[in-house]
C-alpha cells in the first residue's frame, strides 16, 4: 500500500476533525499525525506524546538603523500592509502587521533597514505509541499561523502515511494545510450549519482539484441536510458515525477510542481502508 497524505477538514468548527484524524492515525500501521490547527491545537492532548524536539517558528522583521535613515519614506510608501509609517520624524514599525515580504529592505536607498527575526510560535515533534506527532502552536495575539503550517509540512516523508488535521474554515490557513494532500476527507455535521459549510469546503476542494469524500459525524435520527447535499452532488459518503454518548465522553476526556476499545479500533480500520481505496482510485483516475 502506498503511503499517502490525507487531509481532514470541515469548514465549520467542532464537527470532529481532530476526533477522526487522531483515531485513524492510531488505527494505521505507521502514521505521522500533523496538527495544522495552530490557533487551537488539540491533537497533542489526545496523543500525549513524549516531545523530542521543540523549535521556535520565526518570521522576518525589519529593523531600522536611524543613523542611516534620511526620512525618505520609500519603505512606508511601499509597504502594502501599512506596517511602516512615518510620524513625528520617526519611522514606526507595527510588528503584527508585517508579513515579512522584505520589500522595505529592497526599496530603501540608504541600506538603513536590515532584517531580524520575530518569534510567532513553535513547532513540536514527538511520538505516541508508534505515531509520530507534529504540532504547531501560534502565540496568542499573533495574526497568522501560516508560517507555522509551512514549517510543519516541510517534514521529510519517512515512508509513513500522513494525517493532516486542518484548521476550521476555508481561508488561507486551510489552503496552506491541504496543498500537498493526495486525498481530503470532509467531516460534516447533520445540520443546516454543517451543510452550508460543507458546500463552502466542497467548492474549495473543487478549486484545488483535490479528490475527496465526506464523513458524516454526530448523526441523529431524522433530517440530515449534509447527507442530502452529498447525494445531490454525487459526493461519496465514506462513513456515517452516529451520535454516541460513550464516544462523546471518551472524546471530551481526550481519549483515543481506537486505542481504548477493540470494537472502535476495527471500525476505524475499516474506514481507513475505505479512504485508502478511494484515494487509490482517485490517483489512478487522475493519471
Amino acid at each position, binding site marked *: 500500500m502506498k503511503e499517502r497524505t490525507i487531509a481532514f477538514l*470541515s*469548514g*465549520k*468548527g*467542532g*464537527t470532529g476533525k*481532530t476526533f477522526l484524524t487522531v483515531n485513524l492515525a492510531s488505527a494505521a500501521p505507521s502514521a505521522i499525525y500533523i496538527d495544522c*490547527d495552530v*490557533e*487551537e491545537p*488539540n491533537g497533542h*492532548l489526545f496523543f500525549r506524546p513524549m516531545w523530542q524536539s521543540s523549535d521556535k517558528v520565526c518570521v522576518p522583521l525589519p529593523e531600522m538603523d536611524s543613523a542611516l535613515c534620511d526620512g525618505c519614506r520609500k519603505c512606508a510608501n*511601499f509597504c*502594502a*500592509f501599512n506596517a511602516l509609517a512615518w510620524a513625528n520624524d520617526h519611522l514606526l514599525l507595527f510588528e503584527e502587521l508585517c*508579513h*515579512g*515580504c*522584505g*520589500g522595505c529592505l*529592497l*526599496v530603501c536607498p540608504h541600506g538603513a533597514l536590515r532584517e531580524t527575526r520575530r518569534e510567532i510560535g513553535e513547532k513540536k515533534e514527538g511520538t505516541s505509541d508508534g505515531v509520530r506527532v507534529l504540532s504547531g502552536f*501560534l502565540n*496568542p*495575539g*499573533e*495574526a*497568522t*499561523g*501560516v508560517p507555522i503550517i509551512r514549517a510543519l509540512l516541510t517534514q521529510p516523508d519517512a515512508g509513513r502515511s500522513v494525517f493532516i488535521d486542518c*484548521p*476550521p*474554515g*476555508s*481561508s*488561507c*490557513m*486551510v*489552503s496552506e494545510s491541504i496543498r500537498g494532500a493526495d486525498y481530503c476527507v470532509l467531516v460534516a*455535521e*447533520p*445540520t*443546516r*450549519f454543517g451543510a*452550508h*459549510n460543507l458546500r*463552502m469546503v466542497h*467548492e*474549495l476542494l473543487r*478549486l*484545488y482539484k483535490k479528490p475527496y469524500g465526506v464523513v458524516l459525524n454526530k448523526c*441523529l435520527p*431524522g*433530517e440530515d*441536510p449534509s447527507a442530502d447535499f452529498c447525494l445531490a452532488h454525487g459526493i461519496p459518503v465514506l462513513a456515517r458515525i452516529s451520535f454516541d454518548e460513550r464516544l462523546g*465522553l471518551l*472524546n*471530551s*476526556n*481526550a481519549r483515543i477510542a481506537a486505542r481504548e476499545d477493540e470494537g472502535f479500533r476495527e471500525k476505524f480500520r475499516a474506514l481507513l481502508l475505505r479512504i485508502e481505496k478511494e484515494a487509490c482510485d482517485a490517483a489512478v483516475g487522475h493519471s
Partner: protein
Amino acid sequence: MRQLVILSGKGGTGKTTVASAFIRLSQTQACADCDVDAPNLHLVNGPYSFGDSEPYYALPLAEINPARCTACGQCQLACRFDAILPGDAYRVDGHSCEGCGVCALVCPVDAIHMKPHHAGDMTLYTNGDAVFSSAELKMGSGTSGLLVSQVKKRMNAAAKENAAFSIVDGSPGIGCPVIATLSGADVTLIVAEPSLSGMSDLARIVKTARGFGTRIAVCVNKADINPEITLEIQVYCEQEGLLFAGLIPYDSLAQKAVNLGLSIADIPCPSGEAAARVYRKLLPLITQEGPLI
C-alpha cells in the same frame, strides 16, 4: 452603541446557536456575523430581508503579463511566499500571493502588475430599523481580518442612533479574524465546551482577548456531556476573575431548531431556556459601563 462579541476559541461549541438566541431575546437593532470563513448566522436569524450586497476587495494581487515575461526568474527568487510558478512565462499562484508587490518591484521588464482582488461579498440585511451585517469570503482567500472590520463598520454605519448594543458572532480560533472581531468589543462572551480540548482552547482565547480591554464572561454549552470538566471550567473562571454566566445543557432539540431555520429561543426547549438565563445574567454587563472583570 455598545458591543457584545461572542467567541469560543474551539469551533463548534455553539457560538451561532447562542448568538441567534440572544438576538431574538434582546430584539437588538444591530447584529453581525464575523465568521466570514464559515458564516451561518443568516440561516437562523429570522425575519431579515435581503438588503444590499457589495463586493469586498482585498489587497491587490500580482499578475504576470505572459507577453512581457522573459522567464528570468527574479520574481520567484524575491517572493517569500512561494507564490510564483515557473514556466515559459511565469505565473502567480493567487492562493499563495499575499499582495506585497515585491515581484512587481524586482521585475526588470515591467511584466507584473497588482490587480484588484475580489475576495468576497458583504451583505446587509434589514428588518424594519434592525440591521444585520454579514459577509462571505471567497474560497482560500486570506486577509479575513480586514473583511471582519468591514462587516462591523457596515453594521455600525447602518444602525440607528438609538440602538443600545450590538451582538456580534465571531469565528473560531485566535488569529486575525478573531483579533479583528475583538477590536471594539465592550463585553466578550466565550462559549466553552466541557472537554480537554475545549479547556485548552478556552485558555488560549482568554489570553488573546485579555489584550483588548474587553470584559470577559464564559458560559459552558453541552455542559452535561462532561460534568467534571464543566466544574473545572467554573473553577478556572473563578481563578482568572472571569464572570461565569451559566450552563446550557446538551439538547437534541437545538439541532432540530437549526434545521428549521430557528433559534433555540424560538421553540420551547431546555437549551433555549438556559440560554435565556445566561442572557439575563449578562444583560447588566452589556448595557452598563462597569468595572473591568
